[in-house]
């Protein structure tokens, strides 16, 4: 197979892969007790300092102390309701599943033949991901992802595709239909590969093949 291997692909620095800038919000929300204002301030803070910042601790301390409110001794019920609403508000708006999220799920899968990720090799590209989702959990949604193999006769395109499918099927709610396609004109046997990758029955069978699973699980190691 070696002659299929693209010896020197163009590589993108990991840091240069498209990413969600405000992802630091993780740290913020974790310790989150405060209100919108504080959240906002914490975000600001993280733009100049890391999550271990003492200032951050200090903000949280202050919030904490401000929040130790005397309970409404009269009507407990209400006060609980209120605090509950606060909780909900604190969660802020729903983060919709977008192309970036799908990208983050797939870009870090490692290529079976290079010690590099699909993102770095531009096999997966943000611009080639579509998400169709009306947001209603009762309805189906669709993700279409077009991949670009490193070279037109890359025999591993199918394996890469399988890796992506397994990753997405494990990661997305059941209401998502996943379509994986080779980008037009990037592969000699585009149609065969596409048909294969989107044949539910073949994929299901592949997922019962220990050796294949092994390869896939190696590809997914780098995802966490």
């Amino acid at each position: 197979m070696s002659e299929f291997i693209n010896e020197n692909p163009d590589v993108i620095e990991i840091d240069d892969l498209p990413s969600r800038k405000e992802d630091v919000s993780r740290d913020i929300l974790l310790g989150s007790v405060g209100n919108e204002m504080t959240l906002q301030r914490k975000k600001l803070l993280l733009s100049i300092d890391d999550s271990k910042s003492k200032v951050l601790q200090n903000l949280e301390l202050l919030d904490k102390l401000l929040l130790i409110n005397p309970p409404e001794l009269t009507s407990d019920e209400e006060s609980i309701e209120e605090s509950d609403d606060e909780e909900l508000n604190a969660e802020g708006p729903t983060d919709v599943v977008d192309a970036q999220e799908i990208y983050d799920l797939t870009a870090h899968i490692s290529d079976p033949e290079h010690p590099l990720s699909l993102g770095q090799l531009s096999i997966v590209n943000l611009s080639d991901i579509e998400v169709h989702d009306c947001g209603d959990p009762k309805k189906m949604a669709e993700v279409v992802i077009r991949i670009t193999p490193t070279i037109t006769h890359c025999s591993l395109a199918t394996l890469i595709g399988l890796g992506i499918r397994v990753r997405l099927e494990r990661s997305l709610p059941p209401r998502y239909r996943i379509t994986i396609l080779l980008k037009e004109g990037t592969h000699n046997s585009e149609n065969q590969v596409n048909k294969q990758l989107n044949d539910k029955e073949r994929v299901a069978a592949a997922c019962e093949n220990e050796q294949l699973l092994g390869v896939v699980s190696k590809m997914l190691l780098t995802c966490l």
Partner: protein
Amino acid sequence: MIQDDFSVLEPIIEHLKLHLKDQTVGSYLLSSPIATVLVHLGTCCFKMGATQYKDLVDAAIITFIANAEVNEPKADEIATQITEYITNKKIKLLDVIVALKENLTSEEDSKREKALHCLSCVLSKLHPDQLLRNEISVIFNFYKSKFDDDVLMKSTLDGMNSLMGMKYISVTEITALLELLKDEYDAGKFLAATRFFPFQILETMFRTSKDKIVGTPTLNNLFIATFIQIATGEKDPKNLLISFKLNKIVTQEFENVEEFKEPLFDILFAYFPITFKPPKNDPYKISNSDLKLALRSALSSSSIFAHDVFSNLIDKMSASSPNVKNDTLLTMKACIDSYGGRHCVESWLPLWTSLKFELIHNSEGTESSMLNPVTNEVVNAKKSVQSNYQVALDVMKSLAFELEAFDDDEFEKFFYHVFEELKPNFTYDKDLKQSCNILASIASANLITFNKVITETLPLFLENTSEIPKLKLLLMNLSFFLDAYVNVFGETKKETLGQVIVPDNKMFEYKDEILMILGMGLTGNSKLEVTVRTLSVIQFTKMIKMVGYLSRDEISLIVQYMTETILTDSNKNIYYACLEGLKVISDFYEDIVFEISLKRMLDLLPNNASEFIHFTDDEVIPIERILKIILDFTTSRHILVQESIIYLCSKLSVVSKIGSSNDYCFLLLSTLYSLFENNVSLITEEDADFIKSTVEPDLLKIMITDAPIATDDHNLSLLSNVLFFMNLKASISTHQEELNRYNGIFIDEFQILEKPSRFTLPYTKILCGLDKNIKFESAQEVLQMTINLLKKNGLIQSRFENVGYLELLMVLSNKWLSEDVVEQFFDYSDKSIINLEIMTWLGRGLVMKNSKFSTKILENFIKFLSDEQVGPFVAKLFEVFVIDINSLQKFKGINWNNNVKLLYKQKFFGDIFQILVDSYKQTTVLTVKCNYLTALSLVLKHTPSTLVEPFMNDLLPLLLQALEMPNAEVRVSSLGTLKDTAEKFHQLVTDNVNTLVPILLKLVLPEKYNTISVRLLSLQLLELLTTTVPINYCEEFKADVINGLLKPLSDKKRIVRKQCIDTRQAYFELGQVPFE
């Protein structure tokens, strides 16, 4: 049998020895039962004098033989005893031989052996000058007579060895022995332990009679011949070690070695490359590397081997095993270094050829490793075993160095040969990295080689190119020669700054060109050329490290480049490369960095957040980036920190004038805060005093006048902390008057004790910073007034004010009031919210100093928990006792700011834990149970898990129940503790996993008390289980988890989804072996 009989007598003979030392020995003996025993032994003891000692010797010998091989230490003890008799002239060594006679001539091998062993032992213990000339020769001949008795060989040689160590040993014996060993001795017949002695003998001879031997040509040759004889075919590691050692001695100390050089070489190189795996319990503790090194130093010890060594080593280079190669290369280097250039003349060509092959075909180090802002050398240094590639380069360096040291022309020949072979690579961009590595390593040898290489090589690739790939290569290759410079002339050091005089060298001629190319590489390319830009920055940094290379102006230029880059480029690699660069530079030239970089950046800060920072016409820089950079690279840089603080303060007082600049003020204050926090120990009293006098007046002013600060909770609290740091570090001598001054300002002027004020917090923080030992007469009065103010119902509107006053209570009770005074302010009967808070904060002040009252206070608070009315609130208050308040933390080297005992949390936890647990178990009221749990888990949240460990077994069940309490924070803190637990107590968690997992699978679903944190932590904990709980347990609930995590996959929050995916993946992979 023998042995049995005699061992019975041991104790008796022991006795005997003692008594004989006694004066009245004789008479005593007559009446001694032991006498009879001795009669049995066939000796008569009532004769006094020497004979009596002979008997003793007999007895001793018997014991010795009884113990030999059975109990060597004991035998040895006896030998020592006998030796003493000899040394004290009580008996002669010959007497011992006589006494041994019977045994020595015995038919039984073991008897003979032990007997001679006994003699040799004694001999080995004798002082070198104990034996006289003739005694020696007698004994020598005695041993000689035994030489044909193989059984005795070991002891014979042992004895011979001791003899050779004697002072009066003569050439005759030496010669005789050497001949014996050379002709009569057949190493093949004996075990390693025996074979060891001949080597030892030679070593001893050399030690005692070096001059005699080397002085006499015949003896000299005989010695060498003998050595070769015994060393040939040796296999035992221990013997090889000494053999190599002797070989080195011979080649270095003996005459006429040339004649023997082949055999001498063979008994060395036959073993190369030596590999030996020490057996489990190897008594000699000989390691593979001991042998390697011994062999290496023997081979490299003398240049007579030069020809053979090099040709043979070159053959070994074809080996496939990297370890063999490594050994070969290192030996090569050792030889070159010790033989010197003269002996490399005939070998450098073949050497180079084999090295070239090695180097060109086995390059190492990728582009990415080059791109590491922390320079490569560091990385290499970390590796214990040097890579073959690196060693090969070192060999080149040694070769160059020695050849040059020997003769310039030879070096020139060598260099130009190498150079001409590599030159084409520059034209065809082939193996460039290796070629440059090679040339650079030649350059690293010394000034001359350096100049030669630089002059010839740099022109080959140092050209200003616009082609990115070419430029990339250029920059990487250049770096090797910059390293070479450092190798030859050294690295810039703070201590010796400007003192080191670097000899004029060719690198200087290219300085401008290099600077120009790097400058272009950095500025002349689109931001997309990350690699090129990063490389340029890294090379700039390298140049700074090249001692005495750059002038201040040039350094300033570089600083300017880096500053512009770090400000305008958002790429991480470049950012960190520049940061590293600026840090390095500021290590040596802080002033330059301040002038060119920091000042510049600070000046860029606008007065109004809405203004854009126009750096260049097209670049707009966010304020945040500047502040981030400042925080990142000023840390622990004295001037930079101080200047930044002062500048930012004055900037703040301008910004705060503009309404609605809250966020901008917040950023500035956060930066200030971090600057102080990160550099507490760096800032000296003088600095603090200076900073304080410069900025405090303004700060206090804007604190009250400017809305963005005065009315903004966060900003005001940050400012308060900045004031805290200033006072904390200000000279203690000033604290007293400062306190009075601040009381004037806050209490008299702002009247914070008359009417509620937001400025109580700054006042409180300032007090935190002041010395606890200064006088604060009005402390109690202040406390009283504060409490009154707090208790005046509904007077204090904002929670912020409230907190200010409560903290004030804590500081006063901790620092300036006696416990008993404070205690009077506790009124447990008053369950009003405010009084509870007051008692909590006063209480904390005491608890922190492990006051005698703290137990009582806590007991009362725990009682409150059972109160349906105030219980829930008190539960919350428990957090106040332990929550970390930064202005009350301990700073390194500062002990005057508060009375916080380091272990107070431990004590606190110990005090409350059991009571809480018990009360929890006793009560049946759910709400009350909840109160106990809430209190407990809120406390846990701020207690280091190490303190909790001892209580884990009682705690875990509670934690599990806490997970189902209708309170998000309780769940969060319980989950937090469970996570620590899972990491530390695998067994404990495993036992409870069947209870835990189902609960967690409930907590991952969005629901009233399952806040984001609850969901997230539950998922993290589930993931953690896959690594802490044995897989066979996990398999049991694998399916449930995978299925139970379907819903959370559509959580409204992305972070929850992400964690859910990771957790799920972890379970999918359970027991899955990644394909290799």
